């Protein structure tokens, strides 16, 4: 091969690989552009604030608002984080500090496999196995113990059917445990052994080392893991679609069916019979994309900061 031909091939390879890597950037811009242009009829008709604050979701009358779906998304996300985070941090502490070293790898890997199970399996398992357990045992028990309390009782009103906000949040929490656990474990592992050993030398118990040395040292990373799980929970579709009922309403009770952005999209996208209906669904998708992108970017920022801070 002559020198110029070599150069040509090299430049060719450089260009296609550059284009391939730029495709990620182009995709993000493309998704944003397409979603904005597809939802522009709805944006023009309903505006931004009015769309977000309106609880009216009425395909027959052609009037749409996002408040009910945003409510469902917010409740399931927050509730699942509340359930998942303590468990996930417990797991991370167990795997890094408590487990005998031959168990550390296998148990960590097994819990991460929870993240590999596809969401549709979670959804089906939730519908056929978890929902009956919730409606027969757990939800009546919750009603019995907290139902009479003022204010708190409102959360547990109604007939427990199992197809409701609480069941959806429990499934979501199981799905996001591995994300928080895995990133917290990495953050915990970055704590220098010498620092931990100095605390032990002062007579600290293992829990005191975890609480006063390991967690303060790695709190940014743990926080990043929690925010990442939040981003994942926001966009989870199939696991929730089975057990939420796609009912557009804002309720105080966790035992009521509701709707999230993702569930609404999954159930109604192919049924949208008018342009404004479809456009409103694209509007929801746009809101979801922007929300999760921002949340995930914040998570990435904290995770990167932990890694850098320790190096």
């Amino acid at each position, binding site marked *: 091969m002559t020198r110029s031909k*070599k*150069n040509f091939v*090299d430049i*060719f*390879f*450089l260009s296609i690989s*550059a284009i*391939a*890597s*730029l*495709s*990620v*950037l182009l995709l*993000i811009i493309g*998704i944003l552009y*397409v*979603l904005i242009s*597809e939802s522009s009829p709805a944006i023009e008709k309903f505006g931004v604030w009015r769309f977000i604050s309106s609880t009216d979701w009425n395909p027959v009358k052609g009037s749409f608002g996002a408040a009910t779906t945003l409510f469902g998304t917010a409740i399931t996300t927050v509730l699942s984080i509340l359930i998942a985070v303590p468990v*996930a*941090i*417990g*797991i991370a*502490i*167990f*795997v890094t500090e*408590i487990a005998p070293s031959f168990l550390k790898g296998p148990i960590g*890997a*097994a819990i991460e*496999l*929870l*993240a*590999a*199970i*596809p969401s*549709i*399996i979670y*959804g089906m*398992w939730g519908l*056929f196995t978890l929902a009956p357990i919730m409606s027969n045992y757990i939800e009546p028990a919750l009603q019995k113990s907290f139902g009479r309390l003022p204010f708190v009782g409102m959360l547990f009103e109604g007939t427990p059917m199992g197809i409701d906000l609480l069941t959806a949040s429990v499934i979501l929490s*199981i799905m996001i*445990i591995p994300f928080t656990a895995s990133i917290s474990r990495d953050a915990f592992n970055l704590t220098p052994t010498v620092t931990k050993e100095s605390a032990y030398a002062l007579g600290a118990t*293992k829990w005191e080392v975890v*609480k006063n040395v390991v967690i303060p040292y790695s709190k940014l990373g743990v926080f990043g893991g929690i925010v990442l799980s939040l*981003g994942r929970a*926001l*966009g989870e*579709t199939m696991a929730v679609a089975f057990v939420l009922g796609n009912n557009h309403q804002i309720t105080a009770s966790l035992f009521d069916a509701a709707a999230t952005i*993702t569930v609404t*999209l*999954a159930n109604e*996208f192919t049924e949208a019979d008018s342009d404004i209906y479809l456009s409103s*669904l*694209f509007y929801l*998708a746009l809101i*979801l*994309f922007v929300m*999760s*992108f921002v949340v*995930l970017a914040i998570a*990435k920022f904290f995770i990167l900061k932990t890694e850098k801070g320790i190096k």
Partner: protein
Amino acid sequence: MNTAQVRKLKNGIALTVCTLAAFLGLFWLFFIIWDVFFNGIGGLNLALFMNDPVPPGLEGGGLRNAFVGHLMITFFATLIGVPIGILGGTFLAEYARGRKIARLISVLSDIMVSVPSIVIGTFIYAVIVKPVGHFSGWAGAVALAIIMIPVVLRTTEDMLSLVPWTLREAAFALGAPYYKVIIHVIYRAAAAGILTGILLSIARVVGETAPLLFTSFNNSFFSANMNEPVSSLTVSIFQYAMGPYDSWHSQAWASSLMITVFILVLAVLGRLLLAWRYGKRPTI
């Protein structure tokens, strides 16, 4: 009780709670796998793989169309997504190594890995399904490919960065141009790692449902034509599980079992490969 005893007690309680948390995590994993296995094994028979769906209520239907459709969609998604991902990762780790643009794209890919897959579905609906006028297998394959690209890209970038720089210098010293160094030296050195990335990205998309709902849609007949709506296992599971018939439920469980086993095998294989070759584990 004196302070030492209180501290010891607190220590014991806290450690027990953490241990219980770990076992709760394991409990969910085994509960779900056992449940899928227990419910799915009964529906596994030859008819599931050999027959196409029959009208509800009749006996003997299967999901041959969905198995074939799912394979086709995943195959073409891999065919589109993997080369783009590998090339993109190559650019970041080799040509743009250390530059700002490489950092930016790498971070954006990490974000893209977690972006809701249903949004990708709506995007493909707008750019492929709507202009063409109908749902198609190709739209589904492209949607899955978009999900694969950032996964493959990031693993490739990480794995190429692990190849020692001196190896490249040795090849340069022999007068090899950069593209030859990449293809003949670096790709070979990082082969196991790149393969892991491919395995994990396939495991990632095989179970995806949301992006297929409005791209490849569903088809109750057998079709090997990627230009038509193509049935997939996951969408069929969604439809069957939500349906009222017991035979549908049992087929949905059996298909779930097949998908779960397939994904867990891929995920475990990918992990073992990574642990054996690099002593690392994948970032989720």
